[in-house]
């Protein structure tokens, strides 16, 4: 009998971490294949800082070379298109298939068709989402920079649940930062189907201090949940009222990456329910689901969370395939957001596995009115975190 085989689909925050930890800690006892179509991973985390001019594009890109060289991971650049759960094999778009003893799915998100009337993927150049990083992020940044003086940037924010709860609002901060410098009479309009959002008090306090009068948010009480877009004429219709805008950033409703549904392990809402102790799919114990695609309980969909879940998964997979010791699962998350220059805030929590879900045990959040030194230190922490987590995923 050969070595046990693990196939990991998706080389992002969850999948690449899981592949790395399984290969590294099993010291060659497990055969690990990572399936990922792109040759360079551009992280969504810190992509807003790139839009704001605080990072360059190259600094948010990562390659898979070290995973192959340092840990012997077989990196296959292809799409997984099907999962045969009885035969335990994954079909690839390029034609071949890969058999597995354990399958790890970490495909991130896909958008829900029709969630914003008038928008579909064919319109993503006129109205970018920039919610999968890479060319979309570059496009949105270019559109912001090319906006006419006094123009309007509109964001159609997503309904819950979605990846990175503070992400849209950090993006607003970064766009405002750019416009304040280059286009101070421009306006920002947020059309939001949610009554509340993550770190709301911190963001609104920051917007008031740094970008007074620039940002307007229309919540569901004023029709933020009744929106339609017209990409051809660059119009946003809010509760029947037509608004002409210059840039329109549409972040649609989300669900697990399509391969999870293709594997038949998603719920009605489109996410894949998992067992908290091991991140195993509730529908198939040979499949683990990580990160944004999973329906796990209290953790926000973040890169930090995906990385944390991947370590629990890696331990469970090694335990099952090689008999290595399994310790109780524990998870944590911290999300930093940048509001303006040296003005960082954070929210964090710790979690444990219960039979029902990943349950929050404790947490903290930055406060309004913190000193400039505290905010700067928080921003600097986020730089240290980005460097560390990048190593923890890709080195």
């Amino acid at each position, binding site marked *: 009998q050969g070595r046990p085989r693990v196939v990991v689909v998706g080389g992002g925050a969850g999948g690449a971490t899981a592949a790395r*930890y399984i290969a590294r800690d099993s010291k060659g006892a497990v055969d690990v294949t990572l399936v990922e179509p792109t040759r360079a991973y551009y992280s969504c985390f810190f992509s807003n800082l790139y839009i704001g001019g605080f990072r360059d594009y190259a600094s948010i890109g990562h390659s898979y070379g070290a995973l192959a060289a340092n840990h012997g991971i077989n990196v296959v650049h292809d799409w997984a298109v099907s999962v045969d759960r009885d035969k335990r094999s994954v079909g690839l778009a390029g034609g071949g298939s890969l058999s597995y003893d354990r399958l790890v799915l970490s495909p991130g998100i896909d958008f829900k068709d029709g969630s914003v009337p008038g928008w579909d993927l064919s319109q993503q150049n006129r109205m970018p989402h920039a919610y999968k990083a890479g060319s979309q992020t570059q496009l949105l940044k270019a559109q912001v920079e090319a906006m006419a003086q006094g123009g309007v940037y509109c964001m159609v924010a997503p309904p819950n649940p979605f990846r990175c709860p503070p992400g849209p609002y950090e993006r607003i901060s970064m766009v405002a930062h750019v416009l304040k410098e280059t286009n101070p009479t421009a306006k920002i309009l947020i059309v939001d189907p949610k009554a509340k959002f993550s770190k709301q008090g911190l963001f609104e306090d920051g917007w008031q201090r740094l970008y007074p009068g620039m940002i307007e948010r229309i919540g569901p009480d004023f029709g933020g949940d009744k929106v339609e877009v017209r990409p051809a004429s660059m119009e946003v219709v809010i509760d029947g009222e037509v608004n002409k805008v210059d840039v329109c950033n549409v972040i649609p409703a989300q669900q697990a990456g399509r391969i999870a549904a293709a594997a038949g392990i998603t719920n009605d809402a489109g996410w894949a329910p998992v067992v908290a102790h091991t991140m195993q799919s509730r529908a198939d114990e040979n499949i683990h689901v990580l990160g944004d695609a999973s329906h796990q309980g209290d953790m926000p969909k973040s890169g*930090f969370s995906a*990385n*944390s879940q991947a*370590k629990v998964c890696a*331990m469970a997979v090694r335990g099952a395939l090689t008999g290595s*010791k399994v*310790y109780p699962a*524990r998870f*944590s998350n*911290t999300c930093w957001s940048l509001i303006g220059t040296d003005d960082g805030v*954070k929210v*964090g*929590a*710790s979690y444990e596995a219960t039979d029902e879900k990943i349950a929050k*045990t*404790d*947490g*903290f959040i930055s406060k309004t009115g913190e000193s400039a030194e505290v905010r700067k*230190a928080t*921003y*600097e*922490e*986020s*730089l*240290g*975190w980005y*460097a*560390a*987590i990048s*190593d*923890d995923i890709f080195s």
Partner: protein
Amino acid sequence: WSADAERGRALYAECKRCHQVGDGAAHRIGPHLNDIFGRPAGSLDSFRYSPAMKAAGAGGLVWTGAALDRFLAAPRATVPRSRMSYAGMKDGSDRADLLAWLRLSSGGGPDRPPAQPTVTPEEYGLDPQLLTIRGDPDYGAYLAGECTTCHRPDGGEEGIPSITGWPHDDFVIALQAYKRGKRVHPAMQLVAGRLSDEEIAALAAHFRRAGDQP
């Protein structure tokens, strides 16, 4: 002692939690600083430096007074990716005073004072018994997954300090201080708050061992 050196002794408080200097000084989080003047950077075989510090020494960096002055003003601008997590002493006259005291305490002369401990459990009101618990480094290796999301294994980044290769006691005292709210930092208090005393000892053993690997 000159007045300057006396002021420098107080300023050394910023270094004391990582470095020992004087009679009986040993390596702690950082290398001992005895005979530092004229010493090539990264040159003590008994201390595990970062690759960056070793390379700086191999490239000819010698700790003259001027080199120390430049390094201490902005450590990572002088030695990028050094494991010394210290932001720098910005004021030039502070540095001059500090170096005056360092010259006195690091040389072999009769004035050399005895080395001071880097940290004691009493400073944080901790029970010294906590330092006697021995941890399982393999369990620590698993628990460390939670740490390496923020702390690079090789240390060496602004914003989040290096924690590899630390002496057992210094590591345990730091984590116990966060756990018990004697050191204040929301993320670290959250992380340490749910670690048991045995788990803290296990992490100390793991990160100590991780520091020995090249």
